[in-house]
């Protein structure tokens, strides 16, 4: 069924299709309409779930952590400072290997207050052990939510589904709502490794020592470091699982999506602009116009940010003349986070060290706190790079009026 609705509603319908058992949420713009919709679906009886209107985001994820530990499929959503308020719980959910799915309607963080879009919120949570997926339009939002539960439950790692606040969360666009039957075929019921149960008592997330220690049967159990290694190993394996989920999804729903990144006009491209979320679609317009000027620009929209599909990204970028990474986030005092990742992966994975084949990577920061991203500014920023110029001080800033 095709409908015209907001990105937030697309996310909510995805959660409903996944038959989430427990939803906990605290209002924050621009996520709120998503969980409002879920509360409506639950109250009206259209969705059979527990909706908990908690008193904070810290508690929202707290409820999900405990519900997931008890064997329920759990969901929450947030934005900006709400996500930051969850920070401790993000680490906890990942360390406890709980397959929670959370939507993040991306928004700039305070201070000063802003309600408008950038991606500083989720990118600053990069190292919490969550899988991060970025959706670029409404169809991707609903599909990604469904795939997210599959990936989370296959890997026992929580998944963040990120999409741009307002630009996607509040705009209405047509999208296809997958059939419930097919979703059920795609996503089997949640079978936890262990659920809290008086008939099988266990103490979860116990203090863990620096060194391995024997369990009650005399077998060697992990130390803290082994558990960290297993989370890392699980994240690396998740790259494969994300690919498998995509393939499965494509087969069951007869669609043709890509798992890790969307490539636009990259086959013959000498320059590639890389972005995440809706900006990657906006950049396609720029590619079309610049190609009329004879500039062979291709666009890559990264969909899987953590784990970072390094080899795949490096392969796509290594033989170009230049790369331009466009970001709505910054690591203050250095560069954009995606830029760091791409430089690092080109240096270490895609090539045998910094050879002449290593393309120059440029970095632009733009759109912070909802600053309008004008197509003409994107063109003016990208055009000189594609004619051999370099940004004087990395990162360059687009649209800065200082």
């Amino acid at each position, binding site marked *: 069924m095709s409908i015209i609705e907001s990105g937030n509603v697309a996310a909510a319908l995805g959660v409903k299709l996944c038959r989430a058992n427990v939803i906990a949420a605290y209002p924050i713009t621009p996520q709120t309409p998503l969980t409002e919709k879920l509360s409506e679906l639950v109250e009206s009886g259209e969705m059979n779930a527990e909706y908990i209107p908690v008193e904070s985001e810290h508690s929202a994820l707290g409820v999900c952590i405990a519900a997931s530990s008890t064997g329920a499929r759990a969901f929450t959503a947030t934005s900006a400072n709400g996500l930051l308020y969850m920070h401790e719980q993000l680490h906890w959910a990942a360390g406890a290997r709980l397959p929670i799915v959370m939507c993040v309607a991306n928004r700039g963080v305070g201070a000063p207050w802003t309600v408008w879009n950038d991606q500083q919120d989720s990118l600053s949570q990069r190292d919490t052990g969550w899988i991060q997926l970025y959706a670029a339009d409404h169809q991707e939002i609903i599909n990604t939510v469904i795939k997210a539960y599959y990936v989370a439950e296959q890997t026992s790692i929580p998944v963040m589904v990120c999409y741009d606040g307002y630009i996607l969360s509040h705009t209405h666009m047509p999208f296809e709502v997958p059939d419930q039957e097919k979703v059920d075929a795609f996503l089997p019921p949640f079978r936890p490794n262990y659920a809290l149960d008086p008939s099988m008592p266990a*103490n*979860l997330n116990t*203090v863990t020592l620096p060194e391995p220690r024997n369990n009650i049967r005399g077998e060697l159990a992990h130390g803290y470091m082994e558990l960290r290694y297993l989370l890392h190993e699980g994240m690396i394996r998740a790259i494969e699982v994300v690919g498998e989920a995509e393939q499965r999804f494509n087969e069951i729903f007869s669609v043709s999506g890509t798992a890790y990144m969307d490539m636009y006009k990259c086959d013959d491209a000498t320059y590639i602009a890389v972005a995440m979320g809706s900006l990657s679609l906006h950049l396609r317009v720029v590619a079309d116009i610049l190609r009329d000027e004879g500039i062979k620009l291709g666009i890559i929209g990264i969909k899987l940010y953590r784990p970072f599909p390094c080899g795949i990204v490096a392969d796509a970028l290594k033989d170009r003349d230049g790369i331009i990474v466009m970001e709505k986030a910054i690591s203050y005092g250095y560069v954009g986070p995606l830029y760091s990742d791409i430089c690092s992966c080109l240096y270490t994975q895609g090539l045998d060290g910094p050879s002449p084949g290593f393309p120059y990577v440029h970095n632009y920061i733009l759109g912070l706190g909802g600053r309008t991203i004008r197509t003409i500014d994107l063109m003016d920023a990208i055009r000189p790079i594609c004619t051999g110029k370099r940004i004087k001080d990395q990162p360059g800033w687009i649209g800065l009026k200082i």
Partner: protein
Amino acid sequence: MGSRECGQITSHSEPGPGDGGRTGSWRVLRPVIDLEACIPSRRKVAACFICWLYCPDGVITRTIPPSIDYEYCKGCGICAEECPTKAITMVEESKFALEEK
């Protein structure tokens, strides 16, 4: 051999005694029950058991006579302090160390 064989991916602990080791070794004083003075032991009926009630570590049995698990008794002395007939005395562990040698 490493820890992978345990098959776990989280800190998932199963119930068992002695997580803190043989906590009896913490003890400086050992509670010793004088069965002549102990109410249930003397009267041969289930009665009193205040030592059982208050023992923080659950190492005294509610039996006639009550017995103390010295492997884990930490020697706090609450049982001796609360015993209504003063049937429990706290004895220096060093005395037993000599005896047990």
